[in-house]
């Protein structure tokens, strides 16, 4: 079995050239117009804040919120790492967009047959043994592609070997149960607008705690309600019977 792949994005190495953005557009046949934020026409964007450049793209969560909330299972976490979307199933409820903790999925708002759009981690190219378009295009090695375990080791190594250059944190190692996109930065992540209030376990656990109780609830309340009906009905019949026999004996 192949080990799950990931992307390591080292913000300290990013020069803001946007080669990844253009490569992504070409690989995914997206229109050339440039977006400031993630959009149905841009699966990744490069932004500048606090004097550094950083990328926005799908985090490819280990246990994706989008896959958990989608009522028709249009999202799937593949064993290789990418979270892929099957547009043929999508009914357009947009719960994925609403629930994604990283605000990643986008919608084709102008279309009359709209679909959700987001980074695919070049799942098709990966199947052919290739690496993602963005990692391939990056001239400085800011975005690298590899096995998640290896990249985590590499990230720790960089933090240890360059004291003071990085904040001692790998974003994506634990967030919402861990993601297949990992970030290293010299600026604290919350200052860059990365969600910093996420729990370490998959968000889907929050709903599953309730959802998993439903079968029990159905059985227990079914028995209880039918029992209530039966007992009350029985007592009423009995009372009626007593009433009648009382009435006939008086005759």
């Amino acid at each position, binding site marked *: 079995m192949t080990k799950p792949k990931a992307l390591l994005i080292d913000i300290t190495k990013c020069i803001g050239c946007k080669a990844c953005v253009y490569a992504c557009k070409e690989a995914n046949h997206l229109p050339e117009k440039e977006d400031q*934020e*993630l*959009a149905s026409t841009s699966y990744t964007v490069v932004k500048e804040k606090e004097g550094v450049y950083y990328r926005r793209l799908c985090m490819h969560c280990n246990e994706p*919120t989008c896959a*958990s*909330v*989608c*009522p*028709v*299972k*249009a999202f799937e976490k593949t064993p290789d790492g990418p979270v892929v979307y099957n547009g043929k*199933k*999508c*009914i*357009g*409820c*947009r*719960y994925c*967009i*609403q*629930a994604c*903790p990283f*605000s990643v*999925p*986008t*919608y084709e*708002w*102008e*279309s*009359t*047959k*709209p*679909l959700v759009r987001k980074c695919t981690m070049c799942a098709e190219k990966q199947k052919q043994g290739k690496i993602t378009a963005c990692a391939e295009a990056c001239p400085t090695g800011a975005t690298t592609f590899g096995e998640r375990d290896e990249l985590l080791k590499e990230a720790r190594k960089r933090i240890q070997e360059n004291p003071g250059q990085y904040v001692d944190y790998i974003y994506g190692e634990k967030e919402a149960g861990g993601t297949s996109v990992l970030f290293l930065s010299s600026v604290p992540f919350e200052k860059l607008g990365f*969600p910093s*209030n*996420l*729990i370490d376990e998959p*968000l*889907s656990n*929050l*709903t599953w705690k*309730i*959802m998993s109780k*439903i079968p029990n*609830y*159905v059985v227990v*309340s*079914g028995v209880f*309600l*039918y029992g*209530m*009906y039966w007992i*009350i*009905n029985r*007592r*009423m019949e009995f*009372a*009626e019977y*007593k*009433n009648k026999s009382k009435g006939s004996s008086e005759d």
Partner: protein
Amino acid sequence: MRLPFKFTFWKGVLVVIWILGIIATIIRFSKGLGASTNLSDRFPWGLWIGFDILCGVGLAAGGFTIAAIVYVFHIKRFYPILRPTILTAFLGYILVIFALLFDLGQPWRIWHLLIYWNPHSVLFEVGWCVMLYTTVLAFEFSPIIFEKLGWGKPKKWVHSAIIPMVIAGVILSTLHQSSVGSLYLIMPEKLYPFWYSPIIPFLFFLSALAVGCAMVIFESHLSYRAFGHRLKMNLLADLGRVMIVTLVVYAILKIQDFSGRGVWADIFKNRAETYLFWLEALVGVIVPVIMLSIKRIRLSERGLYYVAICTITGFLLNRLNVAVTGMEASSGVHYFPSWMEISITLAIVATGFFVFSLATRFLPIFEHPESSAKPEESVVPEELYSMDILPKS
């Protein structure tokens, strides 16, 4: 009786709303959601989810409450309000599904819910519950049609299966009334702390129960104004009692929840969320509880009508706060619905009122053989009241 085509002020309003609704509908389906709504990637759920779905489902909650009271718990005094509440619930759910067709990006694929299952998704569960419960409501409603048509046999068949169907309906309702709240469980970092809560399913269920009773009181008043039918005062007072208990339990849970999560520190912050939260709490819980604890109000038809209006308004505020107010801060954008979103919502509500008034006029809703002859009441002997099985009327 008034002529159906006599032109009145409200019919004029109805026609205007419908025309605007039809224009908005054409734009919605010919140009897409982007052109017709103010929704965006930052704010993907707006008025249609907040009002048409969250409020719509809740306002129809009277259906399962009264069905359970009458059929499962044999409290036959409530029989006269069974039909109006089932009509409201049935109509409500049909309108919720209808409204959903506007909001879904690809509504013609709604049947995908049937074949692509994801039991981990709350929305999957809500979808199935709404679908099944609407079927149950159609079943519960069918005797009214059969009676109108004079079909005795099908009515009997329905009657023989009514208990399992009502029980299924109660289970399905409690499930999805709470689950529309559970939709937000997965967004702890997105929904503002006043409304996000690990117990949001229970809060949604309790508020639906309270508003279900309020809706019955409200409808009783409206039908009295329109047709002269009105529920007996003792029934209305009982509903008031259920409401005060439910609202007090709701308030206690909410207070515990705020303490447990340390929200009290934020409740006087100068923010839009604070004002809307207090408005909701005041109108939907505090004022109704105070009014209901005053005997003179609790035992008067008009007093209960005002309590019901308060509770319903507070409920609507709550659902809109969850869906819109509570999501704004984390989204980073300001959302206000477009005129097309508002028109379509208004048109759907207006259609609801219109069909309800037609149904009450042409179908045996408020007056029917069972309620006038009351054969069932005669089989309830006094002992049952003294045995504490049935509450004393």
